């Protein structure tokens, strides 16, 4: 069924058609001969894993980057030799970035119709015209917002709508939406999708960038899949299944081996009873045994990360018990948690996990500075070298010198450094939160190899992931979390991946 479509557009003039786009940064090829086409009024999805080239192609179409020689670009039938951001906007192309680029302190009206304020020559700001424009756009979208309210008083979903409104004020005929639903709740997502459908019915093409596959399949008519900077194909969403799409995106074939083993005889490392934190998670019961990898999956906003933070002492649970190695613990801070043998590798590796400008060695020893002191209480460089060397060898990190800044490393190797940093604390429980975000496909396998090796050495591992295949193939048990509660538990050896996906995306 889902064969790539050859010329689906027929006689219609596409909103955009780019062919043979290649883009290299230094020696790295971000896009390799990619073609991409969107029809007017179409809801199209650009799918692919992080780092597959999705944002690069958006940046080329919007003129932020110039493609390498040989690319053909055609926008609404007009052949262009070069695009600049100004040309792109003039032609009616607009991008709603994930961070929205809105002005939190300004009013809703000004945020929507800020275009009327642009220009280098000062003019009288016509607030009335601006409000009228903003009101028209909101009516068109069928939403009701207080035009005078400062933006920061709005919910994330409402801000998202304001961003859509801004694109429409500029008479956009093609709107890119970069992960628009990433921080929305289910009902907010529904509302946004309704707006997208409405835009489409008015002839505005919408290109959705999202890795939430349920949505992708529901809303879009076609999907372009990229993997590692290459075009995998363009597919009709009719008859496409989530697992097939995942396979196209990741290139993981589904005869991947389920790594799960029975660890029910092993001693319990972490036991959580009835843990609740108001507004985040409720009545969590959880057991993680020595050598066991427990995966927690579910949609964003399910409370997974919040649970991780509570187990690591970053937040205080309201009620319930955390029992570590048989003894109840109450962490006052994450310092307590580290001392008790809990390590946490954060979701946001770049901002939270590493001190970017510092050297690889300094990053690794950061949580264990106490253990590398000499008898005068100063940092012993020989002890430091020994610690650093042993972890780099153990985790097979490819580095130049330990003194190089961590910014010189690739995503996968940075993730290994974060692991090394926490393993240096000799933890008993390792919490991994979205361990492969921003890590390319090839490096993922390497990271899971390490995870498995660590488990075999007796570490208890709690792995939080919103990528179901990741949790399915690499955990001994998979727990489904939604709305702050555990609502299902699966043994990968006796469950198919589609059963779990069905439950999560239901």
């Amino acid at each position, binding site marked *: 069924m889902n064969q790539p479509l050859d010329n689906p557009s027929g006689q219609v003039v596409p909103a955009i058609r780019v062919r043979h786009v290649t883009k290299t940064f230094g020696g790295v090829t971000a896009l390799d001969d990619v073609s991409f086409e969107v029809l007017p009024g179409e809801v199209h999805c650009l799918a692919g894993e992080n780092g597959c080239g999705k944002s690069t192609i958006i940046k080329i179409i919007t003129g932020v980057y110039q493609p390498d020689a040989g690319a053909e670009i055609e926008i609404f039938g007009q052949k262009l030799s070069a695009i600049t951001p*100004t040309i792109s906007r003039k032609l009616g192309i607009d991008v709603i970035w994930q961070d929205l680029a809105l*002005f*939190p302190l300004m009013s809703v009206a000004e945020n929507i119709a800020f275009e009327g304020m642009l220009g280098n020559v000062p*003019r009288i700001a016509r607030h009335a015209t601006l409000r009228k424009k903003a009101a028209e756009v909101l009516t068109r979208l069928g939403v009701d917002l207080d035009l005078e309210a400062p933006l920061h008083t709005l919910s994330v979903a409402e801000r998202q709508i304001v961003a859509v409104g801004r694109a429409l004020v500029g008479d956009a005929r093609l709107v890119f939406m970069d992960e628009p639903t990433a921080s929305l709740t289910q009902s907010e997502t529904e509302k946004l999708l309704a707006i997208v459908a409405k835009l489409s019915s008015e002839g505005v093409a919408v290109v959705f960038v999202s890795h939430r596959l349920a949505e992708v399949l529901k809303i879009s008519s076609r999907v372009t899949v990229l993997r590692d900077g290459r075009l995998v194909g363009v597919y009709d969403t009719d008859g496409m299944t989530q697992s097939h799409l995942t396979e196209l995106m990741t290139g993981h074939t589904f005869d991947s081996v389920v790594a799960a083993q029975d660890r029910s005889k092993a001693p319990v490392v972490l036991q959580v009873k009835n843990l609740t934190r108001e507004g985040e998670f409720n009545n969590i019961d959880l057991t993680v045994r020595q050598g066991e990898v427990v995966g927690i999956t579910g949609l964003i906003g399910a409370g997974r*990360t919040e649970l991780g933070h509570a187990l690591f002492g970053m937040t205080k649970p309201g009620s319930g018990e955390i029992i570590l190695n048989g003894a109840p613990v109450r962490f006052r801070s994450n310092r307590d948690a580290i001392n008790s043998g809990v390590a946490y590798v954060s979701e946001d590796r770049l901002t939270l996990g590493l001190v970017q400008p510092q050297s690889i060695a300094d990053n690794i020893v950061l949580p264990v500075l106490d253990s590398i002191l000499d008898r005068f209480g100063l940092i012993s460089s020989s002890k430091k070298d020994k610690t650093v060397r042993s972890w780099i060898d153990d985790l097979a990190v490819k580095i130049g010198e330990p003194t190089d800044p961590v910014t010189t490393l690739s995503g996968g190797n940075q993730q290994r450094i974060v692991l090394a940093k926490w393993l240096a604390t000799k933890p008993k429980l390792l919490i991994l939160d979205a361990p492969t975000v921003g890590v390319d496909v090839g490096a993922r396998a390497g990271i899971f190899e390490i995870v498995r090796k660590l488990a075999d050495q007796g570490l208890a591992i709690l792995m939080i992931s919103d990528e179901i295949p990741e949790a399915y193939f690499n955990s001994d048990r998979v727990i489904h979390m939604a709305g702050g509660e555990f609502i299902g538990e699966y043994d990968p050896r006796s469950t198919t991946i589609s059963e779990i996906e069905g439950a999560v995306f239901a």
Partner: protein
Amino acid sequence: MRNFFRNNPTEAILLVVLAIVCVGLSIGTDQFLTLVNLANLLNASAINIIFAVGLVVVLIAGGIDISFAVAASVVQYVTVYALGYIGGGNWFWGFMIAGSLGIGLGLINAFLIHYFRIISIVVTIATFNAFFGLLMFITSGRYLYNLPDWWTTRIILVEHQTTSGQWAELTAPVAVMLIASFATWFLIRFTTTGRQLYAFGDNPEGARRVGINIAAMQAIAFGWAGMMAGIAGLMQVNFVQEVVPNALIGRELDVLAAVVLGGARLGGGRGSVIGCILGVMLIAIIQNGLNLLGISPFAFKMIVGAFILAAISLSNMSFSSLSFARKGRV
């Protein structure tokens, strides 16, 4: 009015506090609520308000300026020599020369900030030192008394003899302050450029993406602050009738405190002319009141400090919701 309270919470609180302080002082002392005292307060605060409405534009655009008061001193000296060169000049030339010199000094800040991507506090601390050092070096700290007559003559706009026989007078700096305030209010509130300045201070990356000219924003903000500093310098000479190289040093922090008290946000995107006026006036009135109440002048800075802390804590609390970017995914 309801919108004023919702959109300007700090200014609204300040207005209430100012009213309470005024009522208290009117009851507690018999000299506060006299025309003579109020006129003197206004005359003495006019210069700081001119500085403040310049500075607030920089704060709105997300910057900070430490150098403007010293820049005003530089402007005073250069204006004296420039006026001498053109044979004395008049008010028109005074404004032209002081205003342009101020803009020039402001543009130096804007240039360094924009082209070398140095944060404004670092740049303006550097220019503060450079301007002041250069001024002291070249003038050897000499005072100038030999100034054109038009410059040092007090111009009385309104006068009124009270029953006690004293004269309540409003002088030229008050008129200039009103014009400067009105011009700034018009700029930031009613022009597209003003709205771009707010947007730039609010979210610089968003402003860049939406197509605002960033270099122009820095130039306008610091140019405006420089121009106001130049004009304030000109009027300060009219007020004190002499040019002293270190007369204005230290003013930058007083004015900055008043502007922040008036609701401007360090970090950009917020600030208003009415807030500047209220901030400067509140500090002036507190000082005036403490004098009238016979409280030690040494307590003054301490009390102003407490007011600033209270104001900033209040405005920070109301902006705790600003951290929305991370709300969804802690």
